[in-house]
């Protein structure tokens, strides 16, 4: 029970600083793994994949997922609500002043500094996933065989998926569906 409230509070903090959509939450999931070990790194990518396949905002999918993982149904509800509270307060209070506040210098200044930092954080999260899927340092240390270190199949798939992804632009669903089909036939 204690865990649920700690998680809800962490998610309240994430809801306060994660600006600009679901993917900005990903670096904070790694932070949670490091700090609490409630789930592991492999489960983060599982969450992202499932969140892309299910309807609704990805951030909600992931909050519910983390919540249910750590604290069952109550955990899921509390985490999702805690995540949304900061934006509820901010959007509702801002709506009142919206007319005179369209071009706020301070909001713009914050965003000017914050966006590149968010990109860097998401980039490191992407590199971490690439590291676990394409490289295996542990196996290399034992065998000293380069092909144990680099998973050639994974790297080829990474290249193929990148090309498909660039062609498809804004349809992550199709890429995920293709990956499922590939996973049915190709043994990694």
């Amino acid at each position: 029970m204690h865990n649920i409230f700690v998680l809800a509070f962490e998610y309240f903090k994430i809801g306060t600083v994660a600006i600009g959509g679901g993917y900005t939450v990903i670096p904070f999931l790694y932070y949670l793994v490091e700090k609490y070990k409630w789930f592991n790194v492999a489960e983060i990518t599982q969450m992202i994949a499932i969140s892309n396949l299910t309807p609704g905002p990805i951030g909600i999918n992931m909050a519910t997922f983390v919540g249910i993982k750590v604290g069952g149904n109550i955990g899921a509800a509390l985490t999702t609500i805690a995540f949304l509270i900061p934006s509820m307060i901010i959007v509702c209070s801002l709506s009142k002043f919206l007319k005179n506040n369209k071009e706020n210098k301070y909001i713009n200044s914050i965003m000017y500094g914050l966006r590149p930092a968010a990109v860097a954080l998401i980039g490191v999260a992407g590199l971490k996933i690439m590291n676990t899927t394409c490289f295996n340092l542990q196996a290399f240390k034992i065998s000293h065989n380069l092909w144990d270190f680099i998973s050639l199949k994974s790297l080829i798939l990474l290249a193929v998926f990148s090309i498909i992804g660039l062609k498809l632009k804004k349809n992550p669903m199709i890429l995920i569906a293709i990956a499922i089909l590939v996973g049915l036939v190709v043994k990694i």
Partner: protein
Amino acid sequence: MTKKITFLKLFWIFFKIGLVLFGGGYAILPFLKAEMVDKEKICTMEEITDFYALSQCLPGLVAGNISMFTGYKAKGVFGALSALAGVCMPAYLSIVIIFSFLSIITGYPIIQNIFEVLDIAVCVLIFLTILELWVFSVFDKFTTFIFILALIASILKISPFIVVISAGMLGIIRHILFPKEKIPSNSNAQGGNNA
């Protein structure tokens, strides 16, 4: 504020939108236009565009924020909450349902293999998101400086909370030190990217 619409109706409209919303927050715009501009005539397309720009700059989810702004326009604070509950409910329910049988299916080796391939796809999705964000996030000396600083901080395992908050503060400090300088934004690229 229009009184024509009920809270339940508002919830239902956004529930339907949440049900067909896949991927990032950008996907919500055409649905909002169809339901709230064309059908219910609660706001104009200009307002939706303003809400969208603002939603990206505020904490929380783009889709959640824009739903609240539109809901607020229709029915005040409780309208905003009805819209938010509606748009989030399908996402919440689908994960609760999937999770109940996830542990059973992940026992099969074929499913594990699928998830390993999915990891690679997720990796690609993250890099594609970065490409999209890059154009209007990292475009001059100041933003490149912050990007490199945040990259180093993140590799050194400094908490992302500290990274994000200090980056926002650096933006403000720059504005206070050089109040006359304009706040640059790569708005052309942004318009092209999020249309």
